[in-house]
């Protein structure tokens, strides 16, 4: 598909300041965004694609989308190629628009090198001004970690929906049943619900065995054109749908930690693929913690919101036993979570399943349709969701 004629630049704004001692870098980004929107005659709620590079402080685009309160962003790109990034972004934005991934893309650049007495990156020495992620001063002080920010989600989910620790434990139990067949798995022992709920509390209400492993290692993927795929002597795994979205506290109004950005990344992926959750034969679901899996299954539509506890109980995620075999490599909970980023292993096990190359004890019969879904960042603060639907050809 060519981008020719598929996208137009309709707003442009250059910040008037050349010396900005009294504005933060995020503020300059936002003022540029506001100027370009006014130039175009659009509002920030029209923006559904956001592009930034390394000058935007924070975790990729997550900090800036949240800072600006961009509620409808369903496509982000933080490709970094130095000063040329924003030209590359125009090309990438045109691709995304041509493919229907977004309709209104915002590209921002801002910074204040003249104020270089300020540290970049948020770590401030006492008495010194910082110019890092805008949320840093209001969040990094409270001892938030992956454990307790996910713990806050689990606590609220239990409060609103009556989810129990035993139900969460079933997710780990299912992963352990799969990991026993994986000779490379970090943890190979099958565990019981009792062992999970009796393991020591890490961050209320999450126990040690609700948490994923910490492992070294890595992974890689090759994605090709249909012509090259045809020329190769391997089973073909076709990408038939994709969706993505960020989510954050966005000003603190209507904070809801019981759902993830999967509520926005899932539906466009299923729609593009032309399938529904009921059609999926195998699911790779990011499992940094048991609660991560439960919330994402609900948000992707595998069960109703709040019913995740019942859905995962009694082995329903165990291959050959339940209705939705998940993470048949043992997942992040038992097998691998290389460099604390589990997204790539989710795709890798989905590929094994679709090729029929998973371990025979966990291989899903006639596995022709799979989903790989992940959450990066923190479910309890700001995070980005990615969903892909994969089909065996």
């Amino acid at each position, binding site marked *: 598909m060519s981008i020719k004629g598929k996208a137009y630049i309709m707003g442009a704004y250059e910040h008037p300041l050349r010396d900005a*001692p*009294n*504005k*933060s870098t*995020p*503020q300059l980004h*936002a*003022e540029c965004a*506001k100027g370009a*929107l006014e130039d175009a005659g659009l*509002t*920030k709620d029209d923006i559904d694609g956001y592009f930034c590079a390394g000058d935007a402080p924070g975790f990729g685009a997550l900090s800036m989308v*949240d*800072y*600006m*309160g961009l509620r409808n962003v369903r496509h982000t790109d933080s490709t970094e190629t130095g000063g040329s990034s924003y030209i590359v972004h125009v090309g990438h934005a045109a691709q995304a628009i041509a493919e229907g991934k977004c309709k209104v893309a915002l590209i921002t650049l801002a910074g204040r090198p003249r104020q270089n007495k*300020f540290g970049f990156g*948020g*770590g*401030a*020495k*006492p*008495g010194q*001004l*910082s*110019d*890092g992620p*805008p*949320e*840093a*001063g*209001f969040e990094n*002080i*409270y*001892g*938030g*970690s992956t*454990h*307790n*920010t996910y*713990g*806050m989600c*689990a*606590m*609220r989910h239990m*409060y609103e929906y009556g989810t129990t620790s035993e139900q969460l434990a079933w997710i780990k139990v299912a992963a352990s049943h799969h990991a026993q067949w994986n000779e490379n798995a970090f943890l190979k022992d099958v565990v019981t619900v009792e062992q999970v709920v009796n393991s020591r*509390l*890490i*961050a*209320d*209400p*999450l126990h040690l065995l609700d948490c994923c492993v910490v492992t070294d290692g890595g992974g890689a993927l090759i994605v090709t054109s249909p012509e090259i795929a045809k020329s190769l002597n391997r089973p073909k795994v076709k990408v038939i749908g994709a969706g993505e979205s960020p989510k954050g*506290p*966005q*000003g*603190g*109004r209507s*904070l809801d*930690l019981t759902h993830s950005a999967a509520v926005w990344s899932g539906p466009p992926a299923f729609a593009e693929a032309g399938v529904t959750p009921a059609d999926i034969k195998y699911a790779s679901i990011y499992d940094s913690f048991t609660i991560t899996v439960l919330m994402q299954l609900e948000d992707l539509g595998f069960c109703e919101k709040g019913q995740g506890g019942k859905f995962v109980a009694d082995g329903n995620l165990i291959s050959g036993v339940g209705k939705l075999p998940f993470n048949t490599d043992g997942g992040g909970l038992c097998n691998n979570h290389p460099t604390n980023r589990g997204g790539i292993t989710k795709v890798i096990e989905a590929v094994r399943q679709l090729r029929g190359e998973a371990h025979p004890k966990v291989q899903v019969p006639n596995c022709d349709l799979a989903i790989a879904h992940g959450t990066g960042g923190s479910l309890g*603060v700001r995070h980005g969701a990615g969903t892909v639907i994969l089909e065996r050809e």
Partner: protein
Amino acid sequence: MSETQTPPAAEGRKIPAPAVTIESKPFWDAASEGKFLIKRCNACGEAHWYPRALCPFCFSDDTVWEESPGEGVIYTYSVMHRSPTGPYAIGYVTLNEGPAMMTNFVDCDLSKLEIGQKVKLKFQPTEGGPPVPVFSPV
């Protein structure tokens, strides 16, 4: 300066100095005087958290600081047990003005925290920086 003599929140967990930016400096200057400020937008009337120069709801740059009594209810919490300096509680408080903010819960029995519980703000000293807002059950 209300550099209170309250013991550190988490039985020894020291709170690092917050990263103060040119945008958030008025908040931290007020905190050093024992005042808790939030931002409200003159254009749409909404209060938001954390404080920003541009309203995250309507994108107006007409936002103003407003002193808040710092009262609200616990939205959620988690007691962190994996801590070399002893357990501490992180959570979100929904302020009576509307927005929810991340915080710590201090000076209370951490095993008795409950979602929906009423809480009140106090300032906690940090390591060489301005004090930070934390909450205790009323």
